[in-house]
Structure formats: C-alpha cells, structure tokens
C-alpha cells in the first residue's frame, strides 16, 4: 500500500529546500512591486533568469570569483529594471503587466536561441559552475548528516544555510524599509499615485527604486535557484512568474513573512500532493498515468490561485482590511 512515511518526509524536505528559499525570495521581490507599490510586474522570471545566467556565465565564460559573479547578476538586473522601467512606469498598471511579460520572454528567448550557444548553452543550458561556491563551504563531513527527514550532504547544507540566510536578511531589510517614511510613500503610490504626486513626491523615481529593489531580490533568487540544479532556459518561462504570484497571494501580498510562509506551504503541499498522486497511481487507486498525475498538480495550482484571489485576497497573513489590490 502507500508508504505514507515516505510521502510525508519527502514533503517535509521541501520545507527548507533551497528551491523553497528561492521562490520565497522572488515572491518577496514581487511583494515589494505588487503588494507595496502596486506595480504589476509579470516579468519576475526574467529577473531570475538574469541572476541565474549572470552568475553562471560570469563564472564559466569569464572565470569570475563568486562575489564578482553575484555582482554581475545584480548589475544585469538593475540595468534590466531601468530598461523596463523607463518606458513602462508612466503607463497604466495593465500595460506594465503586458510589457514586463514581454520583456521576460525576450530575455528567455535570447538565452534559448542557438545564436549565442557558445555562451548560453542554448536550450541545453549551463552547468559546472558550482565549484567556486562549494570551495567557500566551511562544513566538512562525509556522507549525509541532519535530523529527521532532513538528511543532506555537506554541500547541500551549505546551499541551504546560505539561501535561508539571504532570505532572512532580505526580510529584515524589507521590514525596516516598509516601516520607514520611504515605505509610506510606496504604499501611498499603491493607493493613488496622482495624490502622492500632488504631495510633492517624485512618484516615477520611487516606482523605479521599487522595481530595481524587487528585481534584485528576484535576481538573487535566481542564483539560489540554480544551486541545486543546472541553468535551463525553459525554467524561466512565464509560468514561473505565475507560480511566484500564487505563492505571494497565498501568503499575503502586502506582508513580509507572507512570501516565506506561502513558499513553504506551496512546496510542501505540492510535494505532498504529487507524492500522494504518484503512489496512488502506482497502487492503482487512480485510473491515470504518472505523467497525468504530474499535470494534476498544475491544474491544482491554477484552481488554487483562482480560489485565493476570489475568497481570501489578502492571503493567509494579510490584514483583512489591507487588501493589496489596486483598484
């Protein structure tokens, strides 16, 4: 019959996995954009791709050290935010959504095309960029160590520790910004940018700062994302942005910890669900194939997005009154 222990422990592993951390960080960036400033950035996948490729290309093609590669990624995303922001931040919210989606797709297509295969690896992507990061690992032990279901190698623990430290620092950073007068201006812009403009604030500049800051978070998330896997351009499709939105809405769009809780819940539930379906198919409880079982979870994510937005728009942690939706 179904090995429930295995299903549960696989799900528990996702709780602190680097992937969960990466999604949490990307969602925190979106919280700054969407939840606090009201910017409908649908190009977060593009920022993540720039982080992933910026890091990997710097190391593989140019032999940069880890810190240099991180700076290249951040620099690339700042430039991307500027290129994106200059034409779009004066536009209405829904235009911004479409333009950011388009820009993220342009980024993905440029990384996918065969034209730049020597540098980007085209559709096959990039790998073998992890040595520099692993060399910094202070942990040294053979095999795996840990507690309960969390048994990992020294390299994996190093990735986990670094990624969650980055997430924690980003949360702290965002929290202190959002309780400052700077954060107050952002929230004002979310409510009504003309009113804020009439009060003498340079709305355009604040939106740009918000776009850059959230984008840099996305870029860092992109770097964390490629630590446990390779860089594959197909990962950075529009659905990635949609999943991050699902996480953000699940946790609460205008909250600091919402993205983190949302990401944990999202991945644990998703892993639990796919583990359960896979085994249920195995033992013949469900009359579908394993591949179909995999697709069921995407259907579930779609339905969940709809239900949350309709019935609990403030998310799990959001204040009921502070609905983060721009009118």
């Amino acid at each position: 019959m179904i090995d429930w222990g295995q299903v549960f422990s696989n799900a528990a592993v996702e709780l602190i996995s680097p992937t969960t951390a990466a999604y949490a960080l990307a969602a925190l960036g979106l919280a700054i954009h969407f939840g606090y400033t009201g910017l409908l950035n649908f190009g977060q996948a593009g920022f993540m791709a720039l982080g992933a490729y910026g890091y990997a290309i710097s190391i593989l093609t140019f032999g940069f050290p880890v810190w240099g590669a991180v700076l290249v990624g951040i620099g690339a995303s700042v430039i991307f935010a500027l290129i994106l922001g200059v034409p779009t931040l004066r536009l209405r919210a829904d235009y911004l959504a479409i333009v950011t989606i388009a820009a993220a797709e342009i980024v993905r297509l440029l990384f996918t095309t065969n034209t730049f295969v020597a540098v980007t690896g085209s559709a096959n992507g990039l790998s073998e960029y992890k040595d520099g990061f692993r060399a910094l690992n202070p942990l040294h032990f053979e095999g795996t160590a840990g507690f309960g279901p969390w048994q990992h190698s020294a390299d994996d623990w190093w990735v986990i520790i670094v990624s969650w430290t980055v997430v924690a620092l980003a949360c702290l950073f965002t929290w202190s910004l959002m309780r400052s007068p700077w954060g107050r201006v952002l929230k004002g812009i979310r409510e009504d940018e003309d009113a804020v403009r009439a009060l003498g604030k340079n709305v355009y500049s604040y939106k740009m700062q918000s776009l850059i800051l959230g984008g840099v978070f996305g870029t860092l998330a992109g770097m964390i994302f490629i630590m446990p896997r390779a860089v594959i351009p197909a990962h950075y499709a529009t659905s990635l942005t949609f999943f991050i939105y699902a996480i953000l809405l699940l946790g609460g769009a205008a909250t600091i910890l919402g993205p983190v809780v949302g990401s944990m819940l999202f991945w644990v539930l998703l892993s639990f669900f796919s583990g359960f379906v896979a085994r249920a198919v195995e033992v013949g409880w469900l009359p579908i194939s394993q591949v179909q079982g995999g697709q069921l979870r995407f259907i579930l994510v779609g339905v969940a997005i709809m239900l949350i937005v309709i019935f609990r728009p403030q998310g799990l942690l959001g204040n009921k009154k502070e609905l983060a939706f721009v009118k």
Partner: protein
Amino acid sequence: MSSNATPSSKPVKSVDLHVGDAAPGCKKNDPILIADGVRRTFGGLTAVDVDHVEIPRGAITALIGPNGAGKTTFFNLLTGFDKPDAGSWTFDGTSLAHVPAYRVARMGLIRTFQLTKSLALLSVMDNMKLGATGQTGENMFRALLPVLWRKQDQEIEARAVELLTRFKLDAKRNDYAASLSGGQRKLLEMARALMSEPTLVMLDEPMAGVNPALTQSLLDHILGLKEQGMTVLFVEHDMHMVRHIADWVIVMAEGRVVAEGDPHTVMQNPAVIDAYLGQHHDSDLGSSDADNVEAMKELLDDDK
C-alpha cells in the same frame, strides 16, 4: 444640496485686488500666479484656451463656470498633471511650464482633487505624514537607519496631530482612511495638503459630495487658510459658497475666461448669465444648474 450653508462668522473680504477695470485678464496688484496663452485640445475639442489670467495673492479666488467649461483641465495644466499644447505660466515669478507635478507641489502649490484621493488603505496618520515635504526618511538608503529620521518623524507627527485636531479628525488618526465618510475624506485631503505648508492651495470642487452638516466647517477651514496667509484658488459649481467666501471670481465658459470681478458685480455680467443660461439650450438641464440659476437670481436681488 449644500446651498444654504454659510460660514459661522461673517468673513472679511479682501478688496482692491485688481488694477483698472475688472475685465477678463485684468492686472492684479500682487499676482501670485500668472497664466498666458494656455491652450489644451482633446482631439478636435478645445478644452482650455486662456489668453491671460492673474490670481491675486493672499485672497480667495473662485474659478466658476458651467459643466465642461474647462475648469478642472485648467487646474490640471497649472499643476503639471496635464500638458498644454501651448502657453506659459508662472508661480511667484518662476515659470512652471514643463515642470512635473511633484516639483510644482514642492514649490508650495498644492492641489486637491474633485474625486477625493484619500489613500484608502493607509491610516489617517500615515496620510497626514505623507503630506510633509523634505523628509529625510523618504530616501531609500537613509530610510534603513531610523536614527536619521525618527526625530523628524516625531515632529511631523506632532504637526499632524495639531492639524487633525483642528479638522476634528484626531479621534480617527489610527483608522484606515477608507473608513471615513465622504466629507471627512475631503477634510483629510485638505489637512494633508496643509502638511506641506503651501503658499497657494488649489481646491477642486471642495464641496462636491459633502453632506450639509460638514459644509459649514469646510467653509470655515477655507477661510482659515486665508487668515493664515495662504492664497486659495478653488473650482466650484455651487454659487452660494462662492458668494460667501470668495474675494474674487473668475468665470470660465467653453475653455475661456469670460468674466472676472468681485462676487457681486461678476454675477451681473451678461457674459456670465449667458454662460450659465445659454448652456441650457443645448444640453440637459442638470439639477445643479437649476440651483445655480436660482442662486444667481438671489445674487441679483441682493444687489438691488
């Protein structure tokens, strides 16, 4: 309608504001805002076409006119929220053409909107604090160090409390602005505008949608602004309010300034009567316009 509200005390009217005849575009003794040849078209329609107009300093000026006269568009142009096809205008001697809205506001020219723009999901106090200019903590990097802005923030808060008390909103300071009534939001918007200590306050239909119980206090507050040395320019549809508190009236129709003068004389101007009555021939008769016709008759009677 709020037509019967009057300020609680008889206001002191400013006089001797203009030079020469009170004609459209006449010179003022001490103008704070001067507009020249400001024109704005939407498609083929000319919304605003103002040859010359001066706003007197330290007085309450009303900008009136029938629906579609271009009052709000003119407001938007003066405050940088819209760009004219042609024209120049100066505030305190500084040219404002091509100056973005936020810089106009920083120069001390603060406006409110016809449809209130209270920031619904911010608390009343945050709304107020947002009004203050020159805040250290509004820079992203300095925002990270509360040491740098906490003291200033407390001073701002104290000023906000003072203003909120004056506008009788201090009990609501921690509520979301969304929970206020329409009139309270108007008050909040006005109080928030004052946080920046402006020299010229431009109010776009401050009485629209306010319940009669609050209109009187709104009128008092507008008079209060003048007493504190601010210049007020407001758009209004309601003629009664204009008569009671305005020192000077500018009448717009079809985008142009058709008459200027003190409230009593301007109402007798045939151009003004034409502007209001003429409108009825070719458009629906709104109830507010009917009221205005009444108000004008009343004004004419006052002068007999």
